[in-house]
């Protein structure tokens, strides 16, 4: 099941601060929705365990996150793969960090995901909306944490 998403967050912080946040594997890992555990492997790799509930499908997903920052374009790409309870998800997401004036920064993000297994089959009717909500929540978490930080 292929899913496509996009959105944007306006963050009350400078582009430098936002860039520093989104390239920090620990902070990105902590921004994942319903995150339970975060283990930073190296500056661009982090493992995370998240709680997933899609329709009647509920359980833990183990995710491997790879950050691919491009400082020259202030763009961060992210590959997330993993799964649990017989399901798998492969997600790619990208975000552009754009200074928006008035000490605010625009985080424009888009992504696509492929879900397989029970999470796609059983959760099929609600998966699209639920995934959109979770991804939006992830970037919303980034905004929220930056707002707290700043």
């Amino acid at each position: 099941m292929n899913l496509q998403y996009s959105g944007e967050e306006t963050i009350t912080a400078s582009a430098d601060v936002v860039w520093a946040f989104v390239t920090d594997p620990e902070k990105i890992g902590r921004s994942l929705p319903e995150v339970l555990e975060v283990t930073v492997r190296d500056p661009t790799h982090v493992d995370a365990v998240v709680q997933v509930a899609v329709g009647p499908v509920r359980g833990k997903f183990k995710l491997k996150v790879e950050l691919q920052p491009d400082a020259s374009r202030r763009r961060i790409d992210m590959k997330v793969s993993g799964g649990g309870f017989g399901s798998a998800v492969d997600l790619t997401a990208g975000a552009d960090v754009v200074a928006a004036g008035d000490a605010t920064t625009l985080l424009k993000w888009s992504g696509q995901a492929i879900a397989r297994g029970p999470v796609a089959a059983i959760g099929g009717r609600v998966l699209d909306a639920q995934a959109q909500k979770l991804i939006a929540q992830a970037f919303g978490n980034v905004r929220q944490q930056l707002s707290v930080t700043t």
Partner: protein
Amino acid sequence: MSDEKPAGCLGKAMKRKEDPRFLRGKGHYVDDIRLPGMLYLSLVRSPYPHAEIKSIDIGDAMKVSGVVAVITGKDLEAAGLGWLPTFHGYDKQMVLAIGKVLFQYQEVAAVFAETRGAAADGAEAVQVDYAPLPVVADPFTSKTDQIILRPDRDAKTNHIYHWEVGDKDKTATALASSPKKIKERIWFQRCHPAPLEPCGCVAEFDAMGRLQFYVTSQAPHVYRTALALVTGIPEDKIHVVSPDIGGGFGNKVPVYPGYVCAIVGALKIGRPVKWIETRTENLTSTGFARDYHMDVEIGATAEGRLTALHVATTADHGAFDAAADPTKYPAGMFGVVTGSYDFPAAHAEVDAYFTNKAPGGIAYRCSFRVTEASYAIERAMDILADELGMDAAELRRKNFVRKDKFPYPSALGFTYDSGDYEKTLGVALDKIGYQALLKEQAEKRARGELMGIGFSTFTEVVGAGPSKHFDILGIKMFDSAEIRIHPTGAGIVRTGTKSQGQGHETTWAQIVGEELGLDPQNIMVEEGDTDTAPYGLGTYASRSTPVAGGAIALAARRVREKARKVAAHMLEVGEDDVEWKDYKFQVKGVPAKSVTMKEVAFAAYTNMAQNEPGLEASYYYDPPNMTFPSGAYVAVVDIDRETGEVKVRRFLAVDDCGTIINPLVVEGQIHGGLTEGFAIAFMQEIQYDKDGNNLNTNFTDYLLPTSLETPAWETDKTVTPSPHHPIGAKGVGESPNVGSPAAFVNAVVDALSPLGVRHLDMPLTRDKVWRAIRAAQVVTT
């Protein structure tokens, strides 16, 4: 000597002997077996339909409390157990994935643990690193060979086989010159038998090192032989027991990877291992049914006389060719696609392809592709009737194989044993009140209401079968019976079949009772234990009564011949002066001088004179031909134009299964099969999306009909015995599932025909019917 009344019991509606134990919850199933020290097996399954396995890490799994061992495909490969042969014999199947996975939910690793929960937790903890590969989710993409799914095979193509039967040139010529022709692609969707008890097993090596294998198997002896061939364990060191089975429908014919893993685990760890599938595992990885895309062409004269039939089928077999067809019949009995009709020319061909879907193909009460064949011809006959502007019943009647043409050699190579199709249809038309229904339909159509009448006048072929044609893994498809009559006239019959709800404990006893004049209530039936039952090929494809039923009757007659000697001694006459009449032995011409079998049985152990003591016999029956049950089914439906809801107002099944052993059991079989046919027609499909995700993994997405949806069935019968079967029986278990889907669909299409609808593929869900109505309305406005 005796004034007891005759004990004939063939055709009597005896209540099923087995039911009290089932109704009281006293059945004994595989999951009821608990052995000391028993471990539980859980399988790691792939979420990917097609992917390279880069690594498998079992480290975390081994740390889970209670986990004892984990094995992978590489472990099995090293032990020479990486692959198992499919029952069809021309392909093999990975036990646990080696190198890559080929369908979603394929078995990847096996986890053994102290409890079922620990095994599941351990399976969850196995880390598999997959690299996804492009997915082939339909046979039409597969046939392009742009992605080769099975590089392990010599032939670098996804094409599995081409099979054909009939006269291709004659058929093409006849079609080309036919004044009337129809052509339609008719798809019989992928569905699944979904027995309420999923598959499972318990494997134990006993103190003597002998494998005790308890398993949900419809064919225990074939399992024993197959396990000996796969594992190298000598066959005498394997004891297969198939206890009570909660429904099979063909799903419990193949040997599944979980069985092999359980045996390997029991051997490696030295403790018993139980494996019981989950519902999702059953629906996603075990034997599915159908998935035949059939291009059907029929030629006819302007008056509706059939001239030719051509059917070209594209078959989706999934990742492995695991359709358990007889060796010479890769497309099973699809050659029965000429149905009940006298086609002067016919040609059928099937091309099968691998896809990234679960393997299987012939399950669900269908006698080796007979359901697909029956559905194709019965659907196409309605399309032809529409083309000709003829009444669908009249077109059928006009083209039936006539009663006096039996034994009838069909254009596709079968010799039909017997039938009286006009009579059966006549009973159906009378009982349903066809003329009154036509009048009602005309009135409703004038008011814009949607009412449909659908027919299916099918013939199926069952009872595989004659050894010159039929085998599984080279083992000829005979069956067997062994009968022992005890001194008191009670007895036991053992067969190579295995009931999964068919009522063998009753019907087999009735055959013995009929042949020997004994009380069937005191004839015990035992099946499913390879240490005690004679070798047989099992129960599927409606073969039990046509094959094992014949073996039982003939074994009983051998008992009778032995008893005749004892009777002669008791009656103090020569053996030639004794005749079997009115269910007892009597002196020819002196009916008053007689002995019952019960009396003879006692004498066989107490007063046998010079005769061999005891009273028992066995028979291995190799049938001379298949049997050809038939039927005339009529469905009457009303469709709500606004919602697309189809209400099956009436459904009449008139079956002709030859001699009826027990009408109560036959009616039960028909009710069950009709209910499954109803589910297939209106609810059931195993769907895959284009990425190879199985979308029907549980009973909220794959529906079983309840009493609320299921129509009230009406039944009737005609009886045309099989001339070659010892008691004239043909078998009935699969007829209602074979015959009914076409009747339902024909009725719905008939209802929608005023809107211009010519064909709809199953399942006819409410939204599909609603969309068809909407589309027709858009076109007409």
